[in-house]
Each structure stands twice: as structure tokens, then as C-alpha cells.
């Protein structure tokens, strides 16, 4: 168990949540994500710009020089010239700004008097303009955690979402601009969070307050958390784009572990007397060593005209294979760097060799070729010479950083909460004013208008749900954290389906289906509403909900009627139920005679198996009881 206080853990979170506006932030396009083929594509390059100091972001410059091109996929009817950077932005969407102002007032933040749109330079291609437009709407405010601790909020911004990365092949990268421009609210906490659990609670609390505005988008990918993590003697690491809330604490936990391990490796290297000047970019061409190799990776690289280059890392033996967190070793970190800077598939290092088709003999020759002693590690890479050299340069740089401790970087979360190298941390924030948009004055009168429309707070909602619908507090809380609070209230006010059943179905049932691998994110609110309406009308049984939901999730284009039909779940008429009861009873007259009314349990089980949700259990039970009684009267 790590003592987070002792190691000086500091975490700050930025929650990015898409807003449910009718248009995009800087144009009149709808906020529609599409999966059909794009209507057209255009090809661009982004050129890193010089700052007033003559500086250029090194990673951006590197990619530009390597000739990286970007393909933007777009649609004629749902994207326009603004997304393609072919038309100046329109005035920002007022609705988005008002939602942010509402949230600001909910947490006691101070709205800015006059809003300015800023351009934040981003040259990875995710914004065709080369920058993301962002507006600070309010400063300050705070949120409360269940423990009673308050977390100060630093800023509330409204910004445009970036384009969606579709794929990457060599030096070409594909983005779809449908997502570009969807308004996001960004809520940033102060870096005062001091444990993984607290980080998750803070993200949850912010998420609840945002959802309380009832004007945020829901579903997978509509909320993303950036988590900034540092420990004493470590470094500030930004983990970008954590989509699932329950991953936040894991991400922090793993990152702490990784930094602690890296510090141990640093101390060990120092203990071994390794010095920075010992680690040199002396790349040795060892293609000959692998001329007859059985390694598939190397063979195919050589076939494409590549070479095998190797570099010695003095004193690193045993450390490259050291696990930093689940499945990630120091060697993995080097490999990720090599992939990014060298565009190679990966590296091999002597801590994992022989293996991967590389023989002991080859390792011996390799070590000999680079003059490695027993305590040294060797890293090799097989690719085109230029790529291989770039890759090994990145490896050497990472090795030198290992000597210093934890390098600052931006990392990407994996589904299990571990993280991988994404790119170097950008230098000082590169922001400058968006001159195409005039400043927006926020008047005291407008703020007063917003204040009148402050929505119900989450705690109040829970209380109201409990008192209005008679559901328990646990279910009420689950509803609040689900995407279906509004749907729940609609169902309960417009149908007679019992609220507790509705709440459980929309939360626990769907969650358990999701755990079983059912793609419940495919279920639309309209479909779910339809299902409950059928239940209300007696056209489907409550018990059939999991089956119907599962079928619909797996057949996203089909209707509820089709689901009922396919599943054979149309409701049985009372006559049909009666016939089934009759059949079961007549099959079991002996049992009934033996057990009397106690036979009910066994027969009811049989019956419900046959009914399979096509009849209301209460009705079946009632009929069965009566029939058993009749049967007993007959025999008695």
C-alpha cells in the first residue's frame, strides 16, 4: 500500500464534457458523428510556427520535416468550410457559453466580464487550422467531495472538440472532421487531489454537476478526463483522454507506481556508476549478424531493404526488462519512443533475448559487435536506415532520461488503466488571440437571467427521486450517475410501470448486461422508452426486459416490434395463458394430489419457463392458484 501523502502525490483533473447544443461552437453545422463513408477528403500539412522568441515546438517540427501529411474526411451536408479551415469562424454559439455560465454559478465561480477566444497551437493534425479555439468563461469556484474536502476549481472554459483520428499509416494520418467544433466545457481543478480515490471522486462530482444542467451530451466518448499527476522527485505527467470514470483512480495508481519504479531504476543506475557521457549515439550496423536470422520481424525488414542497427546502453543490463506497471517495462517505454520518433514497429533489447526467433548465438555476436560487457544492455532495431537511426536516437535519449529519473511527457491511457507514451509535453502554452472573433461582453443582466435558471443540484435530485417515486437512495444515486435520469422521469410520469423496476432496469440491469459484453451503448433512449411503453400496455412482460435490451443492443438498426417478434416475446392472451396452466396442471395431477397447495411453487417454476416473459407473472400465479384449488376441490 502506497502512502500517497508521504510521496507527495499531487493530482489535477480536467474534465472535458461535450455540450448538447443544437449547433457547433464556431459554425452552424449540427453536432453529428457519422459512420458512413465520407463524401470527400482533402490533404493538408501543418507547418509549425515560430514564436516571438524564434522557437518552434520540436515534436511538431520533427513531424513536419519528416513530411507528415493529414487526410481530412468530411461530409457535404453536416460539415462546412469552417471545419476545413476554409472560412473564418462564426460568432461562438451562445447556448454553449450560457451552459458554462450556468455551471460557473452552480460552483460559485466568477464569470469573466468580457470573453476572448484564444488559439491554442496544436499541430498533431486534430485541428485543420493548427490550433484549438478556447475561451475562459469563469475563474474559481469549488466542488465538495463526499469526505467533506473541497477541491478548488481553477478555470471553466468552453472550447471546440477536435477532429476524430481514424487511422495512421506511415507518415499519413486520417482525421474525420465531424466531431471537430462540437462545444466542450473544460473544468480544471487545482492540483490538490492527493489520492487515486479522491481523483475519481472529484471527476464524479464534476460530472454530476455537469449532468445536472441537463444540457450535456451523453454516451461513450462525450466526456474525457485529462489527469495531471506528479510525485515528489518525479515529474508532471499528463494522461490525456481517459474516457471512463472508473479508470481515473487506476490511472493515478499505475502512474504513481511507474514513477516510483523509474526513481528506483535511476538510483540503481547511479549506484552502478553510469554517467550521461557513457551513453552515446554510437550506432553499429549489425545487419551481417542477422543475415540468416529466423526472426520474422528482422527477416521482413531486411527483405524490404532495411538494416539492423544496434546501440549499447552501458550498465543497463536487467533494467530494460524491469516492470514499471502491469505489462510496461523500461524497454516498452523505449520502444514507444522509437515508434514515435522513428516510425518503426518496435525494438528488441537484450533483456528479452534470446527470443522472438533471435538465437543465443546471434545475441553473442551482437554483443561482440557493439562491444557490450555483461552489465550492458543492447538495443536493436530493424528498419530503413533513416528510421532505424531516428529510433535509436530516441532510445538513447530515453536512456539518458532514465538516469535523471522521470521524464515529463504526455501519455495515453489503455483500457486497463496503464498508460503509454503519446508525445513529449508541449512547451510553454502557445496561445494567441483569435482575431476573427470579436470579444463577447457578459453583462450583469445576462448573469441574472442565468441565475434564475440554475438547475436542481444532484443532492436535491436524489431526495426528490426518493420522495416522488419511492425508490431507495442507492437506486436514485445510480440513476444520477447513469445516462437515463430524464428517461426514468419520463417513463414514471407517463406510464404505470413501477418506478423501482424502471430504475433498476435502467441502471443495474443494463450495467450487468454491459459486464456480460452486451453493447448497451447502442440502445437509444427512444428504443428504451418504446420497450417500457410496451410493458405498460401489457404487450411485453417486465421479466423480458433483459432479453429485449440485449437483442436490441446487438441489432441496433431494428425496432422494438421486431425484437418482440424475433424473441417470440409477444404477450400471450389470457386464453393462451389459461391453456398453458391447464396443460401444466393436467400433467401434474398426481403431484397436486400429493402436495396440495404446496405444489404451487414447483408448477409455477415450470409454467414461467414455458411463458418466458410472455405473460405477467402475477396473472399466471393467480390463474395457477385458482386452477390448483379447482383441481383439489375436484379430487377432494
Amino acid at each position, binding site marked *: 500500500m502506497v502512502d500517497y501523502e508521504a510521496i507527495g502525490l499531487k493530482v489535477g483533473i480536467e474534465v472535458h464534457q461535450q455540450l448538447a447544443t443544437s449547433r457547433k461552437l464556431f459554425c452552424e453545422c449540427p453536432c453529428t458523428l457519422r459512420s458512413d463513408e465520407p463524401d470527400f477528403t*482533402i*490533404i*493538408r*500539412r*501543418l*507547418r*509549425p*510556427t*515560430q*514564436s*516571438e*522568441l*524564434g*522557437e*518552434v515546438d520540436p515534436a*511538431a517540427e520533427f513531424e513536419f520535416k519528416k513530411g507528415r*501529411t493529414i487526410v481530412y474526411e468530411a461530409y457535404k451536408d453536416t460539415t462546412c*468550410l469552417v471545419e*476545413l*479551415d*476554409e*472560412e*473564418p469562424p462564426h460568432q461562438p454559439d451562445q447556448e454553449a457559453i450560457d451552459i458554462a455560465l450556468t455551471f460557473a454559478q452552480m460552483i460559485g465561480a*466568477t464569470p*469573466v*466580464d*468580457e*470573453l*476572448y477566444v*484564444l*488559439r*491554442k*497551437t496544436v*499541430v498533431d493534425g486534430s485541428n*485543420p*487550422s*493548427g*490550433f484549438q479555439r*478556447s475561451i*475562459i468563461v469563469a*475563474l474559481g469556484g469549488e466542488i465538495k467531495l463526499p469526505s467533506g474536502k473541497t477541491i478548488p476549481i*481553477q*478555470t471553466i*472554459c468552453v472550447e471546440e472538440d477536435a477532429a476524430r483520428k481514424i487511422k495512421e499509416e506511415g507518415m499519413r494520418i486520417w482525421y474525420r472532421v465531424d466531431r471537430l467544433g462540437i462545444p466542450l466545457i473544460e473544468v480544471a481543478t487545482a492540483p490538490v487531489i492527493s489520492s487515486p480515490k479522491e481523483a475519481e471522486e472529484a471527476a464524479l462530482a464534476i460530472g454530476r454537476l455537469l449532468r445536472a444542467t441537463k444540457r450535456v451530451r451523453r454516451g461513450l466518448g462525450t466526456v474525457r478526463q485529462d489527469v495531471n499527476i506528479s510525485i515528489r522527485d518525479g515529474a508532471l505527467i499528463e494522461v490525456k483522454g481517459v474516457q471512463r470514470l472508473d479508470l481515473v483512480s487506476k490511472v493515478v495508481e499505475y502512474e504513481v507506481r511507474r514513477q516510483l519504479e523509474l526513481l528506483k531504476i535511476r538510483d540503481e543506475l547511479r549506484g552502478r556508476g553510469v554517467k550521461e557521457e557513457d551513453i552515446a549515439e554510437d550506432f553499429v550496423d549489425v545487419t551481417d549478424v542477422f543475415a540468416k536470422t529466423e526472426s520474422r520481424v528482422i527477416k521482413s525488414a531486411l527483405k524490404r531493404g532495411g538494416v539492423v542497427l544496434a546501440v549499447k546502453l552501458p550498465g543497463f543490463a536487467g533494467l530494460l526488462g524491469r516492470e514499471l506497471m502491469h505489462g510496461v517495462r523500461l524497454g516498452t517505454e523505449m520502444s514507444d519512443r522509437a515508434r514515435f520518433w522513428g516510425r518503426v514497429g518496435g525494438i528488441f533489447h537484450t533483456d528479452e533475448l534470446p527470443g522472438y526467433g533471435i538465437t543465443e548465438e546471434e545475441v553473442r555476436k551482437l554483443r561482440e559487435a557493439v562491444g557490450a560487457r555483461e552489465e550492458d544492455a543492447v538495443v536493436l532495431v530493424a528498419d530503413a536506415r533513416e528510421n532505424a537511426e531516428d529510433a535509436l536516437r530516441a532510445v538513447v535519449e530515453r536512456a539518458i532520461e532514465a538516469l535523471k529519473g522521470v521524464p515529463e511527457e504526455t501519455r495515453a491511457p489503455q483500457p486497463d488503466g496503464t498508460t503509454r507514451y503519446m508525445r513529449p509535453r508541449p512547451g*510553454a*502554452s*502557445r*496561445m*494567441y*488571440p483569435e*482575431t476573427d472573433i*470579436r*470579444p463577447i*461582453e457578459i453583462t450583469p443582466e445576462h448573469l441574472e437571467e442565468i441565475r434564475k435558471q440554475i438547475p436542481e443540484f444532484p443532492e436535491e435530485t436524489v431526495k426528490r427521486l426518493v420522495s416522488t417515486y419511492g425508490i431507495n437512495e442507492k437506486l436514485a444515486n445510480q440513476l444520477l450517475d447513469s445516462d437515463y435520469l430524464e428517461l426514468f422521469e419520463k417513463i414514471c410520469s407517463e406510464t404505470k410501470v413501477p418506478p423501482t423496476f424502471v430504475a433498476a432496469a435502467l441502471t443495474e440491469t443494463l450495467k450487468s448486461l454491459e459486464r456480460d459484453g452486451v453493447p448497451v451503448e447502442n440502445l437509444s433512449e427512444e428504443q428504451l422508452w418504446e420497450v417500457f411503453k410496451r410493458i405498460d400496455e401489457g404487450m411485453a412482460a417486465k421479466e423480458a426486459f433483459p432479453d429485449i435490451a440485449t437483442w436490441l443492443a446487438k441489432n441496433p438498426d431494428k425496432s422494438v416490434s421486431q425484437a418482440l417478434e424475433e424473441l417470440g416475446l409477444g404477450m400471450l392472451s389470457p386464453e393462451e395463458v389459461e391453456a398453458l396452466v391447464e396443460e401444466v396442471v393436467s400433467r401434474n395431477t398426481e403431484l397436486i394430489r400429493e402436495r396440495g397447495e404446496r405444489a404451487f411453487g414447483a408448477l409455477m417454476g415450470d409454467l414461467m419457463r414455458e411463458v418466458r416473459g410472455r405473460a405477467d407473472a402475477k396473472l399466471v400465479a393467480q390463474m395457477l392458484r385458482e386452477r390448483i384449488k379447482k383441481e383439489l376441490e375436484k379430487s377432494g
Partner: protein
Amino acid sequence: MSQDLKGYRGAVLELLQKAGAKIGDLIKIERNGQTYEGYLMPRYELSSEQTIVIKLKNGYNIGVRATPNTKVTKIGEGHPPVFAKPPTPPKKPGLPEVAIVSTGGTIASRVDYRTGAVLPALSAEDLYSTVPELSDVAAIDAEILFSIFSENMTPKQWTEIAKTVAKHIERGVDGVVVCHGTDTMGYTAAALSFALQNLPVPVVLVGSQRSSDRPSSDAALNLISAVRAAAYAPFAEVVVAMHETSSDTSIALHRGTKVRKCHTSRRDTFKSVNARILGRVVDGKIEIVDSSFRSRDKSRKLVAKPDFSDKAALIKFYPGMSSSIIDHLVDDGFRGIVLEGTGLGHVGNYLFDSVRRAVREGVVVAMTSQCLWGRVNMNVYDTGVDLLRMGVVPLEDMLPETAYVKMSWALAQTDEPAEVVKLLRTNITNEFSPRTEYAESWPWES
């Protein structure tokens, strides 16, 4: 002082002056218990008068409303940025020589992230350092002629540009690039086409639709391609080099007399009208599309006729147009009027008297079409025949803008209306195309 507090006025200016604050200084603003700290920014033109703009430490700008009880304190001196020029790439021997003449617009620049200012790169060294690829293409000599928005250009500037380009050609460069704002670049291209005759080397106009401070700017690729065309193109013509499509893949080279800005914002705003493009630059290679050009030949002697008259006018006809518009021009001493008529080259008969009077008083009246695509033909309908009879000069498939420029140029070459008409009807630099070719997608993709 006002320079130090750019844009601020009235009470806010006084407040800032009292605090001794200058743009860039770190200041603290206190108001009703709230405190803001940040670097003082210039006030934006459209900000409210009471607003103080500061840049917070996180890089964002905000506007703080100053009230009577607002207190401003200067807490730190601003430090002007020290620009460390990236090393200028070494000059490569044996490269063609290209002169770059800047007339306005910022084809290359740096961003001052401190104040948001865009600092233009104007000298050859600046250009090399912001667009290093240029050093592989040509040996560059850069001159800043003037720095004006292209909508502020007049025939006077055309003359100056023409003289400057002529000077560079006469000293023996292999090509000239003229950096120009895009709004009237088509007019200037036409002007240089008439002013610089018998060209020995290419003259390439270039601009950008996205300012060069942004990573997505079209400026650098346009400039590199323009310099390449100036240095290596096989032709000696005046051309405009701009994006051919929305993609950063191809730079079109349009003939100076046939090119027009056709979109308010797209990168591929320039289109050749009634003509194919002359060529394009793709992947650093020049492809020729229309091979009927004057070949590059440095031994050829340039003939410069850089003068333009300001007594030419361009009028677009519209239904209900008042004849007094023409009358005014004639009364004002205008000597040439280019009409942008309807269809095949018509104006309403309610203008006939004024047109007749203009011609009678020695004003040259010429006809183009507001259709832009296609050729005028004034023999088909009575109106056209009537106008011809009045002495209106039909200008084939010439762009109205080119016709206006040619009128202005012709009027400066001779005082004789008949001579002006003769010049107008002579195809001097491919302003007419005798044949109109069939185009599959016309005018371009719908």
C-alpha cells in the same frame, strides 16, 4: 504614452497611467474583493471601453470591467521578447537568383504569443528562417516595396510595382516574385502583364488566404512554389501562384490576364476564367498544362510600359441602373468606361442616350459580360447591334477586371481615342483567347 497603452481610452486609460503600467507589464486588478493578475494586453478594437484586457499566467486572455472603485497596481515589468533567430541555412552555390518584392500582406511571419501580435518576416534572412525550404530552391534577394492592404492599391502602385520588377529583371535575375494581398491580386497581375512586355523571365504573384501565423497557412507552400516557378518555369509570363484545390498538394499557375479571385475565403479562390491554367507545381515539380507560352530567354530585352491612367472606370450594369452614373463619369473627365453588361454584352436601352453622348465626347466605351464565362457577341440581338453602332467596343472573352486594367493602361499610352480602341482590340498578352474550349465541369465542381 498612447503607444505604450495601445487602444485604451478615457477613464481606463487614466487608471492604467496612474498605475504606471505599460502593455506587457504584470498588473493586479482589484475590484469588489476580486483580484485578477496578468499581463496587460493591448485593448482590442471591438472591446467595450471599460475593459482592461489581461493575459493570465495560463495563457488565456480575459477582459476585466473597470468600475469607479477598481484598483490597478503594476507588480512587474514586462520584458520585450528577445528573438533568437534560428540559424540561416547556408547559401547553396549555383542556385538561380530570384527577387522577392513585398507589397503587403504577411506571406511569412512569427507569432508574439505574449501580445498576440503577428510579426511579419520581410527580409531575405527572415524568409529563409521562417521558410527554410527556400534555401534549397533559389538564391533570394528580398525587397519591401510597400506594406499596404491590397484593397488600397491603385494604378499608382501598379506603376511602382512594375518599375521595381523591371529594375530587378534588368539587373539579370532569373525570376521575380511579387507578394501581394489576394483581394486585388488579379488586377495587379493583369496590370503587370500589360506593363512588362517582351518578358525574358517569369514574374510570379503570390498571396495567401490563411494568414501565415497559423500552422495551416497556405502561405509557405504558395511562396515556395512561386519561387520555384520564378526560378525554373520554362515560360516568361506574368502568373499568379495559389492553391489549385483545398488540399496542400498542388499550386496552380494562372495567366495574369485570365485570373480572378472567385471565393471569399477558400485557399483555391483564384480561378482561370475562359482559359486553362498555364501550369502547376506539384511535389516541387513544374507541370505545364498550356504550352502556348513565351519561353524563358534571358537575352530577350524587356519593354516596360509602366504607366496607368486614373481616368478609366468599370461599371457593372444592373436592371434599373441610372444613366446619370455614366453622365457623371463623362462630366468628371473620365476617358474610358468598361461596361460589365448582361449576357452576350448588353445594357438596358434606357442607358443608350448616355452611352451615345459618352462616345460622342471622346470617351472610349467597351463591353464585357458579367457572366464572366464565355464571350460577348453583340451581333445576335438588336441591343448589341445598337450598342455596336454607337461605337461600343466588344472585348471578346476578356475578364471585366482585366478589361478595366487594360483600359487604364491604354489610356496612359495614347491620348487618341481611336488609338485606345485599337490597343483594346489587339491581343497583347493573351487577354483574349480566340477559341473557347469545352470544359467538362464548368465552371468547376458544382
